[in-house]
């Protein structure tokens, strides 16, 4: 019986050491310091997978579970999207969202090439014309900040960061 208890305790402790989850809290405000409600906060894991989401309440406050190394994306219609990297000990944040045009659908964005296919590093270059006009073919949308595109001319698959807004 005692043995069982010890085993249970060990399992419990090991579980604790594995999860380095923290709760990120804070407040979202606009450029004038007024609180913003209904701001969507998405948590992306290091593998760019949606790990959770939350939205800010009427006083602008939010709280979301995350792990160190994750990214939090703050987005709201009419505001520029913000990205925050999660570290292990985070103090309550104040996220200031700046006005952006309400732009739907047309992804006229600056695209920054980060990584090329099969780990070949490529020079970071900024392509500032619409995605559809480039010599690239969209292969997969990973999330709203990352998509994978294939360069038709050189058949290099590229992982591209899409800096929406």
């Amino acid at each position, binding site marked *: 019986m005692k043995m069982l208890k010890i085993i249970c305790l060990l399992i419990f402790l090991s579980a604790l050491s594995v999860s380095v989850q923290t709760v990120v809290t804070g407040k979202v405000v606009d450029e004038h310091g007024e609180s913003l409600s209904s701001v969507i906060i998405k948590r992306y894991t290091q593998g760019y997978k949606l790990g959770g989401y939350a*939205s800010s309440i009427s006083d602008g406050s939010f709280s979301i579970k995350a792990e160190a190394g994750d990214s939090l994306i703050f987005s709201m*219609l009419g505001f520029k999207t913000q990205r925050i990297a999660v570290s292990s000990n985070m103090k309550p944040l104040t996220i200031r969202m700046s006005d952006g045009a309400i732009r739907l659908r047309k992804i006229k964005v600056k695209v920054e090439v980060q990584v090329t296919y099969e780990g070949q590093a490529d020079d970071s270059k900024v392509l500032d014309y619409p995605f559809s006009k480039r010599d690239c073919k969209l292969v997969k*949308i990973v999330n709203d900040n990352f998509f994978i595109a294939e360069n038709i001319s050189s058949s290099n698959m590229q992982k591209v960061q899409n800096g929406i807004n």
Partner: protein
Amino acid sequence: MTCTKIIVLILLLFPTALMAQQTHVLEPSIMEVAYHEISGKYNDDYALRVGKSMSQYFSYHKLRDDSLSSNAQTSMIILQEMLDEANNRNDASKQRASGPDHGDYFYRSQANNTFDTYTSFMGQGYKITEPIPIQDWNIVTDSTRQILGYHCCMAMTTFRGRQWTVYYTEDIPVPLGPWKLGGLPGLILFAEVKGFITIEASGIKTKSTSPVTFYNFLNKKYEAIQRDVYIKERSNPKAYPKNTIVIPQMELQ
């Protein structure tokens, strides 16, 4: 005993819950989404109008009906349409918009965390106020769909007795959707309950949208009622006249 009677009498004499608010603008809107709703043989078109702190959801056809009916001359147009509908039951083009929540106006206030439903039953207007409903979604990221050119992900939930499957897009960062649905990391563009209802976005506009507006063209008085009391009353077959075709409700509990 007499004391209670007096209190009841006083309560009856002063129906404090009754209120008639006139049509007035609530706040400017930044987006309006049109949805087409199909439920059995019924069709309807809805607007989701989104402001900074409020949003509203209502039937375009109901709004038109109310607007035209508020004036003695133009109300004849509606009467004529109703006659045409009744005389041509087999002509689909003559059938007027209808559906489970056709007559309702919904207002969601983020600031007050309230969700108001203005509805009517047997001629009486009712106002149901509740905290903003929260759905416990199960996101299925690998099931995707394109709707109006937006990349959408699937999510599922059981809400008030019905199993909903929706598609939402993270491209539009608004945690809203048709009817009482919302709380996802993007706008819901499609919602379905198999065998009951299909709601699909038919258009989105962000330029020169009408403001979020409280509509009461008919200056109707709305009696405050608890949601469960209202549902119980509407689910009672005895509450309807004989041979009434009862459209199933959105909420079963």
